[in-house]
């Protein structure tokens, strides 16, 4: 039982992320009037629900060693398509939502297939996907389309009251479901473990007989689905569809994943870390808003520096582990020699 209390070193980056979040929160809590309102905490989830959902999808992509630049565009496309289908075609939201989810998923599947079967770099393929999805938004409508269907409005105004005057809307519930599903997927299914394996060493995964091609396509498909779902959540949140929504969101998502302790080379990281990555960014933004006089661009600068800090920390952890191992193996080198150690610990 005792060993349960020993924290595995691989959890450290995650703990640092959580610790930082709590520190930031504590700072705001004692510094600003109104910050102590628990609703401020819930607002982090409410305002970032879509980012949280899409970042979870992005976590899988990055864990598999890939990248997806199209998510912001796919979200915008989903909102426009939802608005268009429900307003101009008069379809019921219960028809529209599955349709747009399908479209987003397909888009992801197509990109994943091109990446996998044509061996083109994800960076370029998803860049093209981003152009395509943004372009399609404007082909459908150059204007913002208001969504007036009562179903959407009801969803949007729906509140689940918690203690005091606090509440959460349906967005947050969807996010929680996605989070639970993602953690299950990552740690309790073969798909999830295969994603980690591919991120660790794709060649090995292939030789271990794992379904690499299928999994990689699925990862992008899953991310397409998450983006589309985030798009649905966003269209409920905004009650409109617009091609300029969530511009540059992919960078926020990538930064969240990195701050959340996932290595961009793939193979190492946690879905839960990403959640805190998003929340930290939201918290920085909130703090700067509460401060009230700082230029909002400080958010960007702080997030940039934080990203850097976390990357530095990751490589520090990795090299610390390496030297520790080397030292250990010198002590009892008779048994175990650390040859090739450095090559096998993935570079941060």
């Amino acid at each position: 039982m005792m060993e349960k209390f020993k924290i595995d070193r691989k959890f450290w980056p995650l703990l640092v992320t959580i610790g930082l979040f709590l520190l930031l929160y504590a700072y705001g809590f004692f510094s600003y009037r109104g910050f102590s309102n628990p609703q401020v905490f819930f607002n982090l989830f409410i305002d970032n629900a879509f980012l949280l959902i899409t970042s979870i999808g992005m976590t899988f992509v990055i864990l598999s060693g890939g990248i997806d630049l199209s998510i912001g565009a796919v979200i915008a496309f989903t909102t426009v398509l939802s608005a268009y289908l429900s307003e101009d075609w008069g379809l019921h939201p219960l028809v529209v939502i599955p349709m747009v989810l399908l479209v987003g998923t397909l888009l992801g599947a197509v990109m994943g297939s091109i990446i996998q079967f044509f061996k083109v770099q994800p960076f370029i393929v998803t860049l093209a996907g981003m152009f395509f999805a943004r372009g399609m938004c404007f082909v459908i409508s150059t204007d913002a389309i208001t969504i007036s269907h009562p179903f959407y409005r009801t969803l949007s105004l729906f509140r689940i009251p918690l203690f005091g005057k606090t509440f959460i809307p349906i967005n947050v519930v969807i996010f929680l479901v996605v989070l639970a599903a993602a953690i299950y997927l990552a740690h309790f299914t073969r798909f999830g473990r295969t994603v980690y394996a591919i991120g660790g060493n794709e060649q090995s995964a292939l030789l271990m007989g794992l379904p690499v091609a299928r999994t990689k396509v699925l990862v992008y498909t899953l991310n397409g689905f998450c983006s589309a779902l985030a798009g649905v959540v966003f269209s409920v949140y905004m009650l409109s569809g617009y091609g300029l929504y969530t511009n540059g969101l992919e960078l926020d998502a990538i930064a969240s994943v990195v701050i959340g302790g996932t290595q961009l080379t793939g193979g190492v990281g946690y879905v839960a870390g990403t959640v805190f990555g998003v929340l930290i960014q939201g918290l920085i933004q909130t703090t700067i808003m509460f401060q009230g006089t700082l230029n909002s661009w400080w958010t960007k600068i702080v997030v940039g520096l934080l990203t850097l800090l976390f990357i530095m920390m990751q490589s520090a952890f990795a090299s610390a582990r390496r030297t520790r191992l080397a030292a250990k193996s010198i002590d009892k080198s008779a048994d175990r020699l650390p040859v090739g150690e450095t090559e096998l610990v993935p570079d941060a």
Partner: protein
Amino acid sequence: MPNTNDSLLLMQGICKNFPGVQALLDVDFSLRRGEIHALMGENGAGKSTLIKVLTGVERQNSGKILLDGKEILAKSPLHAQELGISTVFQEINLCPNLSVAENILIGREPKKFGSINWTQLKHQARQILDRLDIDIDVTQSLGMYPVALQQMVAIARALEISSKILILDEPTSSLDARETEKLFDVMRKLKGEGLGIIFITHFLDQVYQISDRMTVLRNGRLVGTYDTAELPRMDLVSKMIGRSLDELEDMTRFKHETGKRIAQEPLLEAHQLGRTGSIQPFDLELHAGEVLGFAGLLGAGRTETANLLFGVDSPDHGTMTFDGQEVKKFSPLNSIHRGMAYCPEDRKADGIVGDLTVRENIVLALQASQGWFKFLSPKKQTEIADKYIKLLNIATPNADQLVKNLSGGNQQKVILARWLATNPQTLILDEPTRGIDVGAKTEIQKLVLELAEEGKACIFISSELEEVLRTSHRVMVLRDREVVAELAGGELEEKKIMQIIAGS
């Protein structure tokens, strides 16, 4: 014709051609239950193609494969594994970021209600490792463990209860003697359980140590299958390379001749040079015209020593003088300026620059030593490249071939050419013959002695003691990252060095 009755596996008349190459022509192979069968041959003899056909990576053009008397056709490595054919490849093909347990069982993990049952997973992994007498924490990331253990994990992964055949492709190339012995224990144990094991290696010692039978391939054709006990070593080698080995005799003579011309004054001198965590302080002298061998197990500190001498790592202890001058700046470039050259151990990772041409690879170090602005014109580059292609007998259509398209031995020669082009006084060769065939090996060993004869100083590092002894005038023995002995002249005996290495 082998007796088909007790054969576990029978491959008959296997042919495989790739565009323009006949990789396998009418090859027969048989494997018995409870047998360790070595597959021998030079590089390009067709060993790996045969394995690929067997494990479903490639499909034969003709011929059939019988397992337990039934014809099989593996579609993929996974399918082969389901059929009972498990493979451990030369480079450890596992995921360092996953836990040991997962590495063993991923792809066939135990499930409960459709989700991975982690308790059961750990339990099963431990069971499998127990079978191999290995006791490690299965929840730790694989990358935390040394290579030898990773190799064992790879075998554990390959083994299933239903495995009938285990293929080990060069499993010992990165293991030291102790670890190899451990591996052999495991192999013997599995053999006792009735598994058929196909064992591929370049180490002849090991073949004679462990195998029951061996099959020799040459140029895609079967030379023959022999009982190990009945085939003398020299015969095996000549069957593999297809010619006699008088050359080796010549070389020993040659070495004695060159030994007479070693300079008195040391060219390179290290005094208590060392680096914490890498190599204990040591003293070293190297003379012009001399070949100094480094012997020791893998990981004993041979490469680390070479790295210090060449400035890949900087020492934090002691001093080094070169040609009477104290060395202050440690970096490869400074070493090149001093007239040193270094063929690193890992040819693929640290040696060749795959996407560049042979010509560019050859001039690389020379160009680096000349700096950014003293550019060698393409014409001059071709001149240099052609000279060394001819001198070292590099098999390439022309100097503008990409170096990654060359065979391992020729790549090694290109790296040698790169260094010879800088006209060095001192060469450090770390495992220059690893993974290349016997023919090219001899050529390189000979070249080293020729260089010594020209008055250059060489350090020759190799895992094969025999090779070190054949080429070196003097040998330094390392153990546990420490120089433990220096032998010369009559002391150069295999047995004696072995004792020192073993620490007894």
